[in-house]
């Protein structure tokens, strides 16, 4: 399996972000390895062969999860597949909520990471993170997941602060025929998917399409006492993709998905209208979600040295949650032009626009407001322009300069430049370095959303419910990052590849929680409360009746008064031990040092919160064996250090997969996940009201039949 060839969508879009070696017209690929050759995409003969870049040569910390990695790891969800990527930390809060983060800030609000599926951003601004429970497709149709750690903002825009995850589905031409994938087991109760791919039009139009349907029913996790947590997860999904050409230079693609499903996260809430009930735990509230999207691509490539493309995306998302009902429509259009100039410059520039419409109701615990007034509608716009120049200085040195200028409704103009240099010391040895500036612009959740009755003070010693209400701040600024990266890659003897990256990040204006003096509950009375972190200061507390309080609420808001430094090392090695055995190992080390302003009243807890979110050490070891007679045996051991803030101990998990290729078309497999352990808590958090539940050992059997 090849992690080494930087695949073509990257070339088509993100490639721009990284320094690359240009593929010239007379490049014969003789210097590529077999692994890279099998990963090369053959473009339509007449269309532009935009530079093919080798991962080996790219000036960014890139890791590619291939379709084979996905298949052989036995994962059934996209976030679980991301666990194998060095530098990423993945933790499951309940049966269908994940925290996925890169280089620190490991939280359900993983807002410093940009995630895209076929160029469509799946970041949820209202939630300030990714709703992983609705991000899916037929896993067999995923071509690869390209993960760039570190800033990708110059090319991708805000939020691409600590990384970009680009999930790329296969071309319709590569998914021809029928495929049935079905199975079931202890946690994966039942799942099935069917895809059919065919052709349309004439030989000249080269039209290919596929359609798929997918359904699954997953069991919930367990509570700490071993009982069923009832956070089951059901989802139905269907989609299509079509590609064709209208003439030799013009290609089109059109794709879409619709989905509908239910999760049932256990919720911990405090209802201000029923204060006597105290903190209630709901385990029977269905959270229905549905949505759909359409993506159209047009590309005109009149020559090998120039092309133009337009992408339009429409996305609809509806979330019927006990805390809030949210409907969101997003429309995005992007224009891009690529030109090769003066032989050594690969220039790309583009313009894009995004509009997001929100419609909310049933705001029980999450409220959208505008100028202190509850609001049911909101419309946000984003304009941006970017440019990148890839300069081949000498055959061995490549310099990439890029920048993005963006205008958003919250903070106005943002400027995000980036410089990268790659030195190909020898054919199989590359060093690279990068300096970047990226910003995380505030999302609607930090500006205009208020949460109440879902964030509880967990070390409370008082006999009554003690909680925080959190209100967005209109004045909150962007969080800024200056990042320095150094990398080294080497390929030894065609069967051992090593990739080492070091980084040093400086964050300014990080958003933190601070006390406010505005009560949010109805008829609440404010009074001063001793601030245990900063005696003899006091903070504002709110309650219904100071003489006989039913609850205590500390109103909280945001400001930008925190700074942090993070630094770390990421190491990955792929070793083809012999013809039938491959080992992949990676290890990531991370340190976080937050700093509050010296002369303020900011408690130490705010520093600790940032410092203690992520694990210091994460490691993965994967073994893939191709045994005789069509048998395959795969094992995956992963280790994650303790998460201090989440109060989760260091843990090691083991997945095993055994598969038999019965004939060319049928494969059966048995997968064990998190085996040899009863159950495991991976994460806790206190801001969403979602009750953490524990992962159980899972076994499932699967058949894949192609015809």
């Amino acid at each position, binding site marked *: *399996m*090849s992690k080494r060839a930087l695949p*073509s969508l990257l070339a088509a879009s993100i490639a721009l972000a990284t320094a690359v070696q240009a593929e010239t*017209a*007379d*490049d*014969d*690929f*003789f210097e*590529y*390895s*077999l*692994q890279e*050759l*099998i*990963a*090369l*995409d*053959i*473009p339509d*003969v007449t269309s532009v*062969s935009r530079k093919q870049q080798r991962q080996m040569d790219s000036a960014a910390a890139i890791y590619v999860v291939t379709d084979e990695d996905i298949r052989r790891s036995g994962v059934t969800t996209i976030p679980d597949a991301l666990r194998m990527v060095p530098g990423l930390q993945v933790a499951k809060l309940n049966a269908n909520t994940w925290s996925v983060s890169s280089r620190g800030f490991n939280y359900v609000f993983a807002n410093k990471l940009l995630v895209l599926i076929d160029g469509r951003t799946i970041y949820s601004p209202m939630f300030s993170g990714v709703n992983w429970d609705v991000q899916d497709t037929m896993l067999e149709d995923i071509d690869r997941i390209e993960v760039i750690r570190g800033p990708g903002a110059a090319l991708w825009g805000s939020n691409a602060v600590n990384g970009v995850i680009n999930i790329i589905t*296969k*071309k319709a*031409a*590569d*998914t*021809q025929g029928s495929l049935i994938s079905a199975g079931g087991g202890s946690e994966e109760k039942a799942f099935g998917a069917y895809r059919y791919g065919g052709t349309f039009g004439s030989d000249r139009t080269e039209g290919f399409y596929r359609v798929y349907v997918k359904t699954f029913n997953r069991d919930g996790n367990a509570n700490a006492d071993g009982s069923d947590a009832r956070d089951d997860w059901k989802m139905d999904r269907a989609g299509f993709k079509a590609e064709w050409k209208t003439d030799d230079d013009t290609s089109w693609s059109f794709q879409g998905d619709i989905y509908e499903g239910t999760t049932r996260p256990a919720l911990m809430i405090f209802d201000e209208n029923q204060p006597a009930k105290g903190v209630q735990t709901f385990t029977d509230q269905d959270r229905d979600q549905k949505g759909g999207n359409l993506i159209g691509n047009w590309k005109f490539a009149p020559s090998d040295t120039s092309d133009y493309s337009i992408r339009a995306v429409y996305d609809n998302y509806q979330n019927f949650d006990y805390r809030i009902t949210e409907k969101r429509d997003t429309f995005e259009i992007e224009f891009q032009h690529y030109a090769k100039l003066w032989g050594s410059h690969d220039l790309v520039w583009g313009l894009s626009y995004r509009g997001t419409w929100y419609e909310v109701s049933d705001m029980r615990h999450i409220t959208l407001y505008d100028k202190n007034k509850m609001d049911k509608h909101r419309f946000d716009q984003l304009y941006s322009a970017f440019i990148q120049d890839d300069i081949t200085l000498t055959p061995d040195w490549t310099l990439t300069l890029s920048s993005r200028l963006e205008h958003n409704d919250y903070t106005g103009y943002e400027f995000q430049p980036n410089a990268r240099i790659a030195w190909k010391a020898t054919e199989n040895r590359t060093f690279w370095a990068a300096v970047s500036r990226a910003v995380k612009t505030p999302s609607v959740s930090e500006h205009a959303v208020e949460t109440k009755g879902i964030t509880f003070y967990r070390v409370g010693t008082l006999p009554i419910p003690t909680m925080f209400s959190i209100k967005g701040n209109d004045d909150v600024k962007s969080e800024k990052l200056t990042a320095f990266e150094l990398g080294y890659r080497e390929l030894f003897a*065609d*069967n051992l590849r090593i990739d080492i990256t070091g980084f040093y990040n400086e964050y300014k204006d990080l958003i933190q929680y601070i006390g406010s003096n505005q009560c949010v509950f109805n008829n609440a009375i404010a009074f001063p409360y001793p601030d245990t972190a900063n005696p003899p200061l006091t903070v504002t507390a709110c309650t219904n009746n100071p003489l006989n309080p039913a609850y205590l609420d500390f109103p909280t808001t945001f400001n930008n008064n925190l700074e942090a430094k993070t630094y770390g090392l990421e190491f990955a090695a792929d070793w*083809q*031990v*012999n*013809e*039938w055995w*491959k080992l992949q190992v990676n290890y990531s080390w991370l340190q976080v040092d937050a700093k509050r302003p010296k002369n303020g009243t900011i408690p130490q807890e705010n520093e600790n919160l940032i410092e203690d979110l992520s694990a210091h050490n994460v490691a993965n070891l994967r073994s893939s064996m191709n045994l005789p007679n069509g048998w395959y045996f795969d094992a995956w051991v992963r280790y994650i250090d303790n998460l201090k803030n989440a109060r989760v101990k260091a843990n090691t998990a083991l997945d095993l997969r055994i598969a038999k290729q019965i004939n*060319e078309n049928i494969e059966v497999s048995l997968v064990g996940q998190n085996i040899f352990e009863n159950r495991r808590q991976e994460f806790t958090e206190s801001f969403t009201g979602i009750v953490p539940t524990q992962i159980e050992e899972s076994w499932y059997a699967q058949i894949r039949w192609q015809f």
Partner: protein
Amino acid sequence: MLTRPRTTHSVIHLATAIALVLIFAFLTFRAEAATAISKEEKIKAAMVFKITQSITWPQRISNLSVCLMGDENINLALKKMDGKLTEGRRISVTHKKTSAPLHRLCDMLYIPHASKLDLNAIMQRIGNYPLLTIGDSEQFLTQGGMIALIRTGSKVTITINRKAVDQANLKLGNALLGVARTIN
């Protein structure tokens, strides 16, 4: 007196123009010939080159003879290997007729599917001699070919006919086996 030089100049201009057209035509022709090699063919040729680094022949080989057949475009891409060094051996690429004593002249043989050669006849001629055969179709493997470079969607995949390779006493390296699909 004034007209003669003009005529001379005209002739020179005309000759220059014709020469330029010819040069241009020649360059265009060359350019066309060069660009006529598709990326798929280039990738396959590079794969063949990489495969030469991953094969062990039972006999000692000082010059690696790669033989081509038919008049397919890929031959142009494969010819670019000529003179390259692989594992200390110099590659020579030559074109052979099907009637040639292939087992004596070739260490590797590339047989393009599109060439419509009589594959059975070629295979019979080769027998179990240690001659690595490479083609580009599934059918090639079922007819006894050893390695097929098959275009699948937008990629080129490598499939190995293990039985045929073993019978010819050839050994395949890990770099190749690690990326190839094997059938028996």
